[in-house]
């Protein structure tokens, strides 16, 4: 991608987080949109592209109406929680091609206060899932991920302590983030002593269920000059998807992150050792082990030992989940938007007590669907 056609994140803001009783999902996005656009030195009337997921039917239309935007580029693709990394990829290309100038990527959920998460796979009549999955009582989505975790541990020799250590790393970061939902110290033993939900996943191997969301603003070099804060350049992005139904996945120890990571790192011209900050989609502890291997931070079966060495912790050699992640900071059902926001904060040097020194390159890596159905990787760089 040429210099002229390069794209930047010029605004990034969280919605209200945690348990949100005094806002709707739409008003939450609007609050974050104003804050992110203020950072960008832009107004809602400057926005000509809208990207969202999980904001109702024809989500970008509903969000566009609420914000008073009639875009010339729009997308409400459902790529699960990773949609927002996919949207960075698509916004980057749309901006580069001149099809839009200012893209707003937004999302909010009140899944905690609404208590509306389903436990069973959709048993709507006529679907393949209703016929071949629902009758067996597969928990949505912990059952899918548990089948992956069990197979990964069997094949790669990871132990329950390795998985638990991911949650401990996340909690160490959360202790440094005043916005994190849980900040008390956590030990491996405490994770292992928490109730088993679907073996081998304990309660504390699973992410939080909170309200939250955020907005990210993407634009080209020209409009990036208006930004009041340091812009972050989008160096590369990639995406892929695999199975929806867990039985259709030939290998549950590998994710489509292999493809999205290869594409993103290739476009950015970086290698894993260049990454200063890693923001993985930590919906479950073992997920992080798979991403570390899929993106090439270590070899197959080596992630458990890498995590046990403290590499992901504050001061470690691959600072990861630096907000506290979905495990300890916030997980609003679709975490991908918050991974991007934290990566931006780190690259701007505005992450406070949890700031990673000299962070120049950050990677946000999203997953979505049921046991790694989708993956998208975004490489960001400090300007």
């Amino acid at each position: 991608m040429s210099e002229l056609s390069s794209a930047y994140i010029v605004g990034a803001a969280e919605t209200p987080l945690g348990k949100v009783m005094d806002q709707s999902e739409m008003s939450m996005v609007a609050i974050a949109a104003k804050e992110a656009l203020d950072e960008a030195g832009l107004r809602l009337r400057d926005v000509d592209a809208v990207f969202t997921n999980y904001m109702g039917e024809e989500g970008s239309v509903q969000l566009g109406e609420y914000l008073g935007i009639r875009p010339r580029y729009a997308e409400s693709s459902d790529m699960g929680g990773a949609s927002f990394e996919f949207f960075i990829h698509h916004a980057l290309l749309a901006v580069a091609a001149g099809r839009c100038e200012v893209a707003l990527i937004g999302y909010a959920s009140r899944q905690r206060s609404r208590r509306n998460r389903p436990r069973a796979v959709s048993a709507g009549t006529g679907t393949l899932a209703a016929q071949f999955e629902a009758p067996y009582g597969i928990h949505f989505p912990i059952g899918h991920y548990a089948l992956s975790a069990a197979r990964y541990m069997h094949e790669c020799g990871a132990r329950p302590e390795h998985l638990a250590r991911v949650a401990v790393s996340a909690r160490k970061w959360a202790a440094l983030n005043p916005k994190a939902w849980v900040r008390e110290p956590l030990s491996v033993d405490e994770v292992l002593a928490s109730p088993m939900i679907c073996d081998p996943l304990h309660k504390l191997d699973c992410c939080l269920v909170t309200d939250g969301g955020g907005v990210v603003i993407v634009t080209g070099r020209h409009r990036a000059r208006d930004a009041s804060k340091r812009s972050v350049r989008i160096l590369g992005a990639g995406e892929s998807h695999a199975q929806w139904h867990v039985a259709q996945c030939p290998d549950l120890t590998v994710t489509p992150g292999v493809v999205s990571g290869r594409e993103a790192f290739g476009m950015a011209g970086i290698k894993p050792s260049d990454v200063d900050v890693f923001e993985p989609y930590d919906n479950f502890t073992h997920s992080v082990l798979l991403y570390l291997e899929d993106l090439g931070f270590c070899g197959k079966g080596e992630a458990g030992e890498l995590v046990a060495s403290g590499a992901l912790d504050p001061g470690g050699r691959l600072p990861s989940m630096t907000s506290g992640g979905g495990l300890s900071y916030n997980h609003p059902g679709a975490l991908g938007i918050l991974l991007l926001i934290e990566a931006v904060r780190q690259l701007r040097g505005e992450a406070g007590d949890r700031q990673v020194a000299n962070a120049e390159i950050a990677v946000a890596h999203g997953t979505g669907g049921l046991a790694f159905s989708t993956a998208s990787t975004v490489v960001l760089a400090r300007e």
Partner: protein
Amino acid sequence: MEHRLLIQHCTHCGMHQFYPRPFCLACEATALEWVEARGTGTIYSVTTVRVPVVEELKPPYLLALVDLEEGPRLLTNIDGETAGIGDRVTLSWREREGMPPLPIFKVDGGR
């Protein structure tokens, strides 16, 4: 009610597949036939579900992916209290009120 587990067989390349589609995923041929699975297989992965998910199943229960001898992988339940990856299993059936019987599996030798 019949108790037959039918899968697709590609008469062109010999692959078996499940769930059914109007073409072979391996070679894209449309010359597919229904064959009855032998009903034997191996556990690819298994978990014990310890929280209530659906009314019909009282936790804890075993949820597994079983690789049929013919190749296709099925999500299913294992009848019993424990099972491990690699265990050999044999087809069994769960009867359901007003619904077709559901193919599940039992560990060989009754682990």
